[in-house]
């Protein structure tokens, strides 16, 4: 009944000039790492989390990644991707990248502990949950406001929970929370849901889940005995309150591009990509959710990662 998971960070030499540094160890970065290691590039991955896999580790079941006819646990897929890349020699250090200098022949990547240097960089920093930006959200974050169902779902046995959003994540994670909670309201601002039809069917078949279309959450009121959220009907303008023990927010993501914004071309906040996943800066490539593109999924992230690593390999071949 117990599982024991071992994730130990590697140590690496900050004195050498790496062929390639990959920032971020989600599916995009891990795939780039796998390919780069097999190209025998001297590669380093810098990932701030102890457990690589990015958003995958916060995902319960992945059902649309090919090769797994049975749903696969996000964390299992992540762990296996990591093991595969490490098997071919990828090194992963656990450090948070605080600033970068992407200009010139030698790229510098700064963390609290080291300045890492490389000839090329792949940006694979992915994205983070988008916040609602309403009163109470920040205040009760971790005390009833959550962005990760696998992390915090188990805190709501037999409780009443509100889920905000209308996409795949909201529907998938609501179904997961239904294993614990007694009642779930999915609050969404319209009646058009972006979740895949198969998920919509499953949600419709789950008696614990009730859809509340045309509503937005105005504030989170978790200070008193009875916790509730204030809702507004966007059609009628009527305000109401909804008793709830916790709220999970899945309203999309924002790209992790703050580090690069002054040095690289962005498009709506995402890193603009050119042929072969290159960026506007020579020697810098981009892969995964952080890239300007339309479909942000594991299947597209791994494709980006492979492309970027291959392009780096070709680029370095001409410059040895």
């Amino acid at each position: 009944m117990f599982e024991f998971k071992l994730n130990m960070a590697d140590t690496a030499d900050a004195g050498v000039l790496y062929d390639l540094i990959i920032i971020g160890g989600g599916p995009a970065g891990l795939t780039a790492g796998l390919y780069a290691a097999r190209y025998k590039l001297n590669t380093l991955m810098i990932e701030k989390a102890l457990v690589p896999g990015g958003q995958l580790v916060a995902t319960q079941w992945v059902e649309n990644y090919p090769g797994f006819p049975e749903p696969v646990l996000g964390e299992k897929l992540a762990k296996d991707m990591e093991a595969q890349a490490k098997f071919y020699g990828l090194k992963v250090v656990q450090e948070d990248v605080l600033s970068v200098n992407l200009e010139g022949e030698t790229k510098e990547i700064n963390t609290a502990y080291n300045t890492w240097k490389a000839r090329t960089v792949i940006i694979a920093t992915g994205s983070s949950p988008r916040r609602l930006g309403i009163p109470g959200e920040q205040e009760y974050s971790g005390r009833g406001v959550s962005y990760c169902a696998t992390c915090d779902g188990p805190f709501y046995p037999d409780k009443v929970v509100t889920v905000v959003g209308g996409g795949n994540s909201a529907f998938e994670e609501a179904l997961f929370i239904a294993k614990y909670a007694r009642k779930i309201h999915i609050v969404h601002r319209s009646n058009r849901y972006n979740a895949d039809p198969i998920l919509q069917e499953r949600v419709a078949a789950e008696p614990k889940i009730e859809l509340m279309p045309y509503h937005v959450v105005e504030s989170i009121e978790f200070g008193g005995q009875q916790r509730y959220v204030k809702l507004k009907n966007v059609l009628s303008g009527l305000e109401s309150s909804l008793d709830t023990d916790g709220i999970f927010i899945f309203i999309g993501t924002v790209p992790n591009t703050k580090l690069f914004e002054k040095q690289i071309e962005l498009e709506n906040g995402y890193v603009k990509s050119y042929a072969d996943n290159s960026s506007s800066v020579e020697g810098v490539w981009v892969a995964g959710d952080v890239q300007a593109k339309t479909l942000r999924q594991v299947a597209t992230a791994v494709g980006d990662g492979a492309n970027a690593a291959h392009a780096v390999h070709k680029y370095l071949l001409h410059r040895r």
Partner: protein
Amino acid sequence: MAMLDDNVMQEVKKALQNMKEPVTLELFSQSFECGYCKETHQLLDELSAANPLLQMKLHQFENDAEAVKQFGIDKIPAIAVVGKKDYGIRFYGIPAGYEFSSLLSAILLVSTGITKLSADTKKFLDNLQKPIHLQTFVTPTCPYCPPAVMLAHQMAFYSDKVTADMVEISEFPHLAQKYSVQGVPRTTINEKWYVEGAVPEEVLVSKIKEAL
């Protein structure tokens, strides 16, 4: 049946190859009214076979009052990770799931003396006047929790003024109530102050400053 399967045991042995000084896992357990005492005992039994420098010492919580007092244990199962001395590194509840990595890291920390704390943090800890008690609440399924635990443990290792507990919250529901924990990780500082999430070193340090 073994708790640590062959694969995990291989990984553990590899990780512990870097041990330098001997480490004792002081386990506080009792045969009744204790959630995962039995399992924690078995886990440490198997783990301590992975390296000759690692050993487990069992204390009965109900009748080893002296050790209970010496290590300041107030709930079980409890593990104190002790090397040349007791650095104040504790695990309350079973270190399973992702927390297994925290346990291995604590062993290596105590055994090798290698911390990753920045110069600024060390300077701050060097000048601490008052004692600091950090409690990091976790669940075994939380992938973001081990870094928070490891950071607190490193501070405890580095400074005599700091003690740091991992607390597996699902085994101690009364603490979840008391501190109204509804998300993990959360680190409380001297009972009253807390930080949410696995925060960078300097954020924890500035929170500790507030608490002083």
